[in-house]
């Protein structure tokens, strides 16, 4: 069971977290967005081997944050609070 560092609460058991998708999957707004672009936003995921930037939420405190981790070694490289801005 992994330990994830919540930027607000510190290292906590992975069972307290939910995955929130790839970081940087910016939402294209508008009814006219090309369908391929929209489908990409909805369904296409990088699934990288190695370093991944992901959004997670710590369900205990409710805060979303960006975590970088290695999908092979499961090493956590960084975790940063959203800081109020749109997560890019």
């Amino acid at each position, binding site marked *: 069971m992994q330990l994830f560092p919540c930027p607000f609460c510190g290292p906590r058991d992975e069972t307290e977290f939910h995955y929130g998708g790839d970081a940087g999957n910016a939402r294209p707004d508008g009814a006219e*967005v090309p369908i391929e672009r929209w489908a990409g936003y909805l369904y296409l995921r990088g699934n990288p081997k190695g370093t991944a930037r992901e959004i997670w939420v710590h369900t205990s405190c409710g805060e979303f944050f960006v975590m970088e981790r290695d999908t092979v070694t*499961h090493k956590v490289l960084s975790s940063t609070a959203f800081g109020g801005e749109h997560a890019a």
Partner: protein
Amino acid sequence: MTASRLATGGSAIDRSRPIRFSFDGASVGGFAGDTIASALLANDVAIVGRSFKYHRPRGIWGAGVEEPNALVDIGGPQATPNTRATTEPARDGLVAKSVNATPNAQADRNAFLDRFSRFIPAAFYYKTFMWPDWHMFEPRIRAMAGLGKVDTHWTSPGTADQINHYCDVLVVGAGPAGLAAARLAAGAGLCVTLVDDQHKPGGSLGHRACEIGGKPASMWIEETVAELTAGGHLILPATTAFGIYDHNLVGLNQRHFDGRRDTLWRVRPRHIVLATGAIERPLPFANNDLPGILSADAALAYLRRHAVLVGRRVVVATNNDSAYGVAAALAEAGADATLVDIRRDGMPNATAKARLVKGRALAAAKGRLRVEGVTLDDGTRLDADCVLVSGGWTPTIHLFGQAKGKLAWSEARAAFLPGDPVDGISVAGAAAGSVSLSEVFASSEKAVASHGKTKAALPLSTGPEATGGIVAAWPVPGSKGRIWIDYQNDVTVKDVELAARENFVSVEHLKRYTTLGMATDQGKTSNLPGLALMAGITGRAVPEVGTTTYRPPFTPVPLASFAGARAGELMAPVRRLPLESVHRESGAVFQEYGGWLRPAHYGGRGVDADRAIQDEALRARRSVALFDGSTLGKIEVIGPKAAEFVDFLYYNTMSTLKPGRCRYGFMLSENGVVFDDGVLVRLDEHRFVVSCSSSHVAAVHARLEEWRQDRFGRDAVYIHNATSEMATLTVSGPNAHKLLETVDLGLSLDDADLPHMAIGHGFYGGDAVRIARVSFTGDRSYEISIRADRAEPLWAHLRQVGQAFDAVVIGLEALMILRAEKGFIVIGKDTDGTTLPHDLGSEGPRVKRQTEYVGRRSLFTEEASRGDRLQLVGLTVPSGEAPLPTGAHGIKREGDRLHSQGFVTSSYHSPTLGRPIALGLIERGAARHGETIEIQHLGKVRTAMITAPCAFDPAGERLHA
């Protein structure tokens, strides 16, 4: 084999405490400190089980966790199947039964299978019973194979404790390496936890006699344990570290022998020292699975710990130095011992305490139900009642492998050793390939060296040191006779050869094809010989073949340990209404709905539920109903961007809502599918309340938070889930207004002041109440929200004044009928994971809205615009007929073929209308009102007419009546 208990000795047993237990129905005597295995050996019980596939007689092989043969089912309150007799303490009154044997291990009626063994190679059953269908044969074949039996009627007498634990250093294994590492780490000021699967610390020191610092090893063990205990360190005996998980979480299973269930420990150490020792391997020769053939080291353990001499005429076969001490000890104890060493020169500088045959290997063991002799590879016959074998040592690197540690092949040790280090883990002692005590201690020093200077010092070993000389003796392809590789799964040399012929040459394929290394022992004794044989067959080196993946658990862990207290309500806690006890007193029958325990109906358990529900629904329409709607979501959205926020979250424009008013709307997912529906209340300019579905509160709250943090920012919107703060009591029906006028709520209930879809604020008994004119029944309704802890007097008051109006308290089932009469949907019941808002008749925002909202783009895809989408409709059957079954499909015929054209989502008998009503999602349904379609369920076809969803008061006059 004629094993016996010696008159003296046995460090583990207490001769003053005799015990008695039953094995396969026979009474067996022993002493406290015996394992089931040692007691059986002391009583010369040779056959303790039957093999998995061929039902061959099998005896005890080992003295610890590696045991492949001696599995027993323990009965009684502590019932556990497939327990290793070698690690299970013998205790008074214990009931043990051999596995895979009928009626017992001695006289097994399936033993005939062994005579057909040559026709039952690996994968025989799968290859043979293919026609017409494997599943026809599977139950009988499965019943014949297998190990212990699970008693399906057994229930756990208690729950297992689970403990989360933290320490600086976790040392796994309390043999010489582990004790030394623990002592050194403690001396460096670290907090140490030491775990060991034995009852007493010491490991191999318990039977491999030696001196440490000029004193008997037992004294050094005592001294070390005393020092650790005095230092406040934790020592857990009878505890197995069964797994290392991500980020070095270690799982421990602690056994108790006082009636308690095992305890599961989750340990997060900063550093792990694996001092897990090594396991002795068998040697390959024909019939090497006969009872009476044991691991040499196990025989020494039984002699020293339990004073059991495993045989009188003993042949000790070896390819390495470690068996010499065993032969000497057995000879000293009175056995006639012959040592057969495969090596031409034997062990250098060995002092002959037993007869020694050098440069010879065993070709075969003789005997039918137990070993009676051996044949050497030169044809020499030796009589023997017991054969001890040592095929070398396999370091116990399972935990290291689980932690993704890479292994390195050592030709000198003929074994895999831990390779490149893993963060936070070091390996010491025999697990790291150390043999002599000074090597072991040096490896312990190295294992904890990175943690700073230690004040503790290890004594120099003074006794004679063990040596690790070995010449590999792997199974050889083409060998004569039946040579067992895996005792537990009945895998022989021929099975591995067959696997190779059929190109299952990868170790992972070999494992699945032959079952080598599977089941409860996970190949602790068989994996290395098996893959070495595969290497030999395919002309590869052993490390080229590699090992299978190491996975937890190292030894079986009871599921009760993992479950812990998580059973029943602790597994899935229900949410409870603040007025639950009041409802119970009123005869409410409770059911769980979306995680909430709610009254299904009233009238008590004994009542006819259908009639009670029909009666409640009917009376609700006639006069007035009281309903506890406290589960309804109440999530507040507050802040300068609150209006913009709800606009984005809802399909419907919400920012145009006036303060004090409510609006019904949908929330969509980004794929356009309707996620939730409900009423949004605008309390004031910057404050809204999201009334989401009861079962969706957590999910809606999470969704609001996600968009708030991701798109709007923490300072622009604030979200507060107030669902459980307030109870919501609903008064609904033609007499709702009249009833409420008899209660002083401190506000005007006139329609001019409080029209439909408006809210008002008042007081009840000094507490603020919020009253919403919102209706889920189609009748004039008032939802009164009040502090949850003050709801009881108001509820009692409403019930009391309700008597004059023949008010009825209704449960959720009646409400479901009332809403279905109106065609009001329940998300997830009347919709599924494809339903878009316009499928439910809500086309307006899709066509008109110009601003952005969640799911918008998805409403304009090709799929979303299809003409044949399933749309919400009502379905009417002639009165007098039974309601349609929910889930029944609307069908259309194309020639002989039937196609679904949608399905029934809700179906009830309406007491008010006196006929069945139903809702459904039907292809192009919105344009087909009046059309009759066929509905099929379980082969029966009925007809129904498609109508508008609303079956009752379509003009909505009752909202204002």
